[in-house]
């Protein structure tokens, strides 16, 4: 292991801190600016995200499609250029391309589609050992190293000669895990690690990540829309809506007492596998607005069951509320669990009829 400029940090210093990070869609090139001196205003796909991740912690980044969660993850690793904000990794600011390179050397990303993120014409053995080859690490026997990695993720050694398209979704996931962890990263970013997997296989992959996490001690950021899964694997949750964080807090607390109405509707929308507990009204109506037409005021006011006139004009600030929790709402849900359900249900009824 190469020596590190800073120790991995004591309990209080975060492994990764993101401050006020924004990503903009429209980035006019020089030519565009010459032709059109009055360009359209940039649209922030990710807007003012402030987030931190402690060493060995698992953070769940939750949002629906278009919430900017994947963009945020890719920006953190430098695949997309941020328009504003700061990224601090292991106590050092990450700004220049070489900073990002240094950071990527200590981090890994798993993509949503496990097969598509493996180069299709290479064999599994070559793919697994590629990170080491690129980093120029000495490797006397590539095949043996690949087999050791396969064993680490519970796949038979004979898989070294397979091509990515010959793997099932779960097997490709395992190869993805092995490849991500080959360099012993301090940070793992996993984008929808269970997308497209059956429930009986998804547990396998998550258990594997969990085991390796205990063994290797990396921190993980899991990007997902799957609430049922994330509640079992994350320590903390961050909920995104239209490119902004609307709520963060410890997973169990967020699930038992969500503060933001959006969090509450997300949790209530999840179909529950029990016919005796059917939901009677959809928790939220309407469509997710486009980032190009971000609603004025609070971005959730167009769908919020508890909307008030202030929400339509004044954007709420992202503020701390209680221990380790943050919320972006003028009127966070503060009542007890049952009352909150009742409030939401009543308002949903009104809107439904």
């Amino acid at each position, binding site marked *: 292991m190469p020596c590190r400029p800073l120790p991995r940090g004591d309990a209080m210093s975060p492994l990764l801190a993101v401050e006020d990070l924004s990503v903009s869609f429209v980035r006019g090139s020089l030519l565009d600016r010459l032709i059109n001196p009055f360009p359209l205003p940039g649209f922030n796909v990710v807007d003012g995200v402030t987030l931190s991740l402690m060493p060995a912690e698992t953070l769940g980044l939750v949002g629906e499609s278009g919430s900017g969660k994947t963009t945020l993850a890719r920006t953190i690793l430098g695949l997309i250029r941020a328009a504003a904000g700061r990224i601090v990794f292991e106590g050092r600011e990450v700004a220049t391309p070489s900073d990002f390179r240094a950071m990527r050397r200590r981090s890994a990303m798993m993509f949503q589609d496990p097969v598509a993120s493996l180069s299709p014409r290479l064999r599994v053995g070559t793919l697994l050992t590629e990170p080491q080859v690129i980093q120029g690490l000495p490797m006397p026997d590539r095949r043996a190293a690949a087999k050791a990695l396969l064993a680490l993720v519970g796949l038979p050694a004979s898989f070294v000669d397979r091509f990515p398209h010959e793997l099932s979704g779960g097997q490709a996931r395992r190869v993805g895990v092995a490849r991500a962890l080959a360099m012993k990263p301090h940070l793992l970013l996993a984008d929808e690690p269970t997308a497209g997997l059956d429930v009986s296989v998804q547990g396998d992959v998550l*258990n594997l990540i969990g085991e390796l996490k205990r063994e290797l001690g990396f921190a993980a950021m899991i990007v997902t829309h799957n609430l049922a899964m994330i509640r*079992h694997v994350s320590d903390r949750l961050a909920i995104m809506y239209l490119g902004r964080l609307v709520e963060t807090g410890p997973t169990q607390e967020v699930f038992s007492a969500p503060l933001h109405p959006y969090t509450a509707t997300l949790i209530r929308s999840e179909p529950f596998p029990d016919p005796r507990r059917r939901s009677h009204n959809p928790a939220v109506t309407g469509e997710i607005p486009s980032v190009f037409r971000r609603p004025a005021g609070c971005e959730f006011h167009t769908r919020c069951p508890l909307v008030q006139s202030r929400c339509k004009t004044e954007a709420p600030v992202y503020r701390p509320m209680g221990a380790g929790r943050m919320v972006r709402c003028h009127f966070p849900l503060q009542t007890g669990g049952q009352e909150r359900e009742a409030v939401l249900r009543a308002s949903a009824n009104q809107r439904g009829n």
Partner: protein
Amino acid sequence: MSGSLAASGLSVRYETPHGSVQALRHVDIEAHPGEVIGIVGESGCGKSTLVTALANLLPANACIDGSIRYNGVDLTKLDAHRQRLLRGDEIALVGQDPMTAFNPVLTIGDQLVDFQHHRKDLSRAQKRARIAAMLGRVGIADAERRMQSYPHELSGGMRQRVAIAAALLTDPGLLIADEPTTALDVTMEAQIIHLLRELRREYNGIIIVVSHHLGVIAELCDRVYVMYAGEVVEGGEVDAIFHDPRHPYTQALLACDPARFHDRLDRLPTIPGSLPSLTQPPPGCVYAPRCDRAFAPCGSIAPPLTRLTACHAARCHAVTP
């Protein structure tokens, strides 16, 4: 017009260059008007094949055995022309990705008019009026304006609503929804589930919902068939399946769903092992290689369907009424 649907002893084989794949084996299913039937299973369980067989859309290399009786007619024995008529009038399909169901260069309104081509008795204006009414029924507010839109101008949830409207326009006796919410976000999913539940109040045909998502099945269905490796391993009332599952696979599948557990689990439950080959299915029970309760006969004798109550049945040696 609506009638009952009953598949009995239905088997489907695909002839491929690598041997014949037994995608479905001795499947028995019945459905009556007004019922919502759920078909649940993981990938490779044969639910897509079952849907295509019911909708008479099997590819040319499929060999079909057994019968699918709808309204007293065996669908497997119909000639191509009558199959087509039936597909247009009586059987409607709502797919997973509503984007591919529409022609991208025609407006929604024009396409929905075309869907009613068999209604020679209606004028174009009458057809458009029916469409507007139907779009209103599936919860699309400004129907007239939406009819002028192109498919790409609608969101995923909106397209799925239009797809449901299109399916209902022909007034089918059988509506098959194949993974209707899989491509949608959770808040849209809840709305589509709600819509389907609303619709069934006024609709008196059969609705078949196919999904891998146990939550969707529990929310929507009256009766459920659980499929594994091309077989229906258990079938029964939704309450019985979720609260008194008898087949070990159903039990394991339910136990795997993380949505059922409120408190954080350190290890998520899984089903060890993998799906058997469908080219050479195991001689006994298809689930035996992964079953923790397998005993002597499971490896060699295929278990018969054991009736537990009037409409609860499981295909397992270990189950007794």
